[in-house]
């Protein structure tokens, strides 16, 4: 059970007002709000021990090294991974690029993606098609937006890497990852999961999934911007050659050679965002304290309420399955002939309701479906039924003029 009073205290923005009206923040798929604890942890770094980690042996350096290590351990435990299997990146996009640029490609290798990939999990593969001669195929979803396992089974036979979005930022659908991974492994392929929209909303067990690679961003799960995580099974991580090297990636160097450090250090070139990493560790602690059962329950209740209300207007078309239970905290919708940017801007102007509009970095899907754009409500546990009601009331007004 969520303690909403505590949430209000932790997330100051939830109680804040603009022009006398409360803020209704429904753009969590893009960026989550940050609890006070995360900000305090980052401030503590800057105020108390703003030093380097892993290289300075003075007192402050020791504290930072310890704090960063603790954060790595917390995050590893969060997805049931080993500490050495966690590489810090700036975000999911960087993690995918890390994989794309370090994977030992052979010309003709096939990469499979879904048809609802964020550009971050599409463009890197398109670049490799052009530069390294790999192949890229898309597994189209069923008409209801759910994953087409049969089509996948066919295509997986030839694949070298399956790189798929775990939970879609477009419609909130989650792919049957465990089954996909099992099939991939049976066919000798490796699997990468883009868990940017999963990690904030559901428990991920990397070992149980048996996933080979996985990535998520800190900023969507209460953490600071500029933080992300790349997970890989250690045996695989060791085999990848880093594509960005330099400070803190080598054991030693001479004028002619060097000895790389072991993973994950060899992938973390240059000075890291220590405040961010510590903040991310704090965000994970906060999430675990709230509990994914509570998060899921709250998101479902809000999603169901909004989905039911939206059904009052036949003009509104929800992207993805009709059942809110299959759409995480996301409700993407559009109205034929209406620019959803304008729709979102009106909500913002009228009632401080902040939602995303556009193609949500999934241009390929919109172009394929010939849909101009959509509005996306993305919920999180700190959103309330009262806020959802404000949204529906404002929507009601807008629908009267469209």
């Amino acid at each position, binding site marked *: 059970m969520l303690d909403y009073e505590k949430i209000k205290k932790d997330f100051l923005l939830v109680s804040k007002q603009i022009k006398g009206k409360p803020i209704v923040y429904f753009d969590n798929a893009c960026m989550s709000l940050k609890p006070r604890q995360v900000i305090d942890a980052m401030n503590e770094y800057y105020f108390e021990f703003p030093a380097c980690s892993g290289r300075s042996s003075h007192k402050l350096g020791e504290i930072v090294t310890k704090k960063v290590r603790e954060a790595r351990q917390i995050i590893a435990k969060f997805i049931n991974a080993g500490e050495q299997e966690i590489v810090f990146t700036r975000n999911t996009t960087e993690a995918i690029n890390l994989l794309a640029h370090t994977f030992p490609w052979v010309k003709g290798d096939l990469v499979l993606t879904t048809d609802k990939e964020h550009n971050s999990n599409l463009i890197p593969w398109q670049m490799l098609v052009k530069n390294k001669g790999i192949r890229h195929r898309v597994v189209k979803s069923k008409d209801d937006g759910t994953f087409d396992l049969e089509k996948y089974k066919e295509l997986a036979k030839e694949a070298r890497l399956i790189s798929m979005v775990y939970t879609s930022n477009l419609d909130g659908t989650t792919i049957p990852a465990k089954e996909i991974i099992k099939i991939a492994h049976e066919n000798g392929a490796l699997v990468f999961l883009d868990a940017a929209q999963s990690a904030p909303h559901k428990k991920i067990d990397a070992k149980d999934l048996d996933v080979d690679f996985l990535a998520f961003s800190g900023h969507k799960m209460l953490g600071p911007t500029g933080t992300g995580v790349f997970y890989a099974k250690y045996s695989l991580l060791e085999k990848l050659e880093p594509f960005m090297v330099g400070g803190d990636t080598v054991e030693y160097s001479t004028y002619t050679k060097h000895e790389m450090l072991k993973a994950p250090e060899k992938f973390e070139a240059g000075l890291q965002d220590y405040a961010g990493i510590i903040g991310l560790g704090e965000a994970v602690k906060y999430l675990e304290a709230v509990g994914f059962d509570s998060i899921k329950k709250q998101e479902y209740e809000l999603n169901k309420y909004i989905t039911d209300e939206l059904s009052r207007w036949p003009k509104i078309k929800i992207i993805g399955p009709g059942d809110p239970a299959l759409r995480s905290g996301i409700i993407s919708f559009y109205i034929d002939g209406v620019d959803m940017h*304008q729709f979102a801007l009106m909500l913002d102007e009228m009632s401080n309701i902040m939602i995303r509009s556009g193609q949500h970095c999934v241009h390929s899907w919109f172009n394929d479906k010939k849909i101009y754009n959509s509005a996306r409500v993305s919920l999180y546990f700190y959103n309330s039924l009262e806020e959802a009601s404000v949204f529906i009331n404002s929507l009601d007004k807008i629908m009267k*003029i469209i």
Partner: protein
Amino acid sequence: MICIVALIIFSILGIFSATHRQMAKEALDCVFRRVTLRPCNTGFKEKIKSHMVAKLLNRSTFLARAFNRYYEVFAWIFFILMIASTFYVVKGGYNYYLYGSCNGLNQSGFCAFDPKGENNKVTEINASCGIEEKSEKNVSLDGVDLSSFPTKQVGAKDTIVLIGCYECDYTRKAYPDIQKLVREKKTNYIFAHYPAKENTNFLSEVGYCVYKEYGDRFWSFNDYLFTVDKVEIYQSEYINTILKNFDFDISKINDCVNDSATKEAVTNQVNQLRKTHLYGTPTVFINGKAFVGPKPYRVYKSVLNKFIIF
């Protein structure tokens, strides 16, 4: 169209506000794209439309619906209104520069640049003076004989006639500018005293006599009467002191003043001035063109510089 309207409005507001400056930049980008025959895909138009519709929606669904549906029509209306108002603002600014009034020469309607109408204020001549109609159109030198009034620099290309009143504040305000103009442009200059408030009627006769008896020495006497504290000229007793200070022969001047021929001449002068249909002082004629009220110096000067376009 809305981008152009927004660009102008936000540019003006942007002078005072950083937020509007950013909006002006976005509008400029939008306008630039349209001018270069590219679509305005910056989202600016949608942003403006959404803001306006949303604001209306909080007040009236009917208005919001109408605005949303006929947005392009409204955008065109705003554009046309903006062009029209811009034209009037520019014209007003131009008029203000040239005539000291946004509404044109001697027009006393509201002017944002001169909200108190200082440039058109006159000391009105009351109806008993026999003025027919208070209209600047009628104010003219046609058929008026000014030969008996103090005149200097005869033969110059340009002629300035100042009809003013020693006691009147607005004449006193315009007086230094007229003197400066006469001095700088070396114009023919005719001064006519018209006692609008009739407290200083007697000074018309004194001035007439000083000019008659002492010629060009009249001008420094005249300057003094316009610059001295008004209390000194309200009462005729003080005038002897002033005349004495100027080293004029008091008895000679008084004899002249008391002469019936002088009274007849001054009456004739007033009658000539009434023929101009003037309705207040100061009234200045520059090469025959009438300026009623104290105009800024640039207005008088621009006439001689031939800077009038319309």
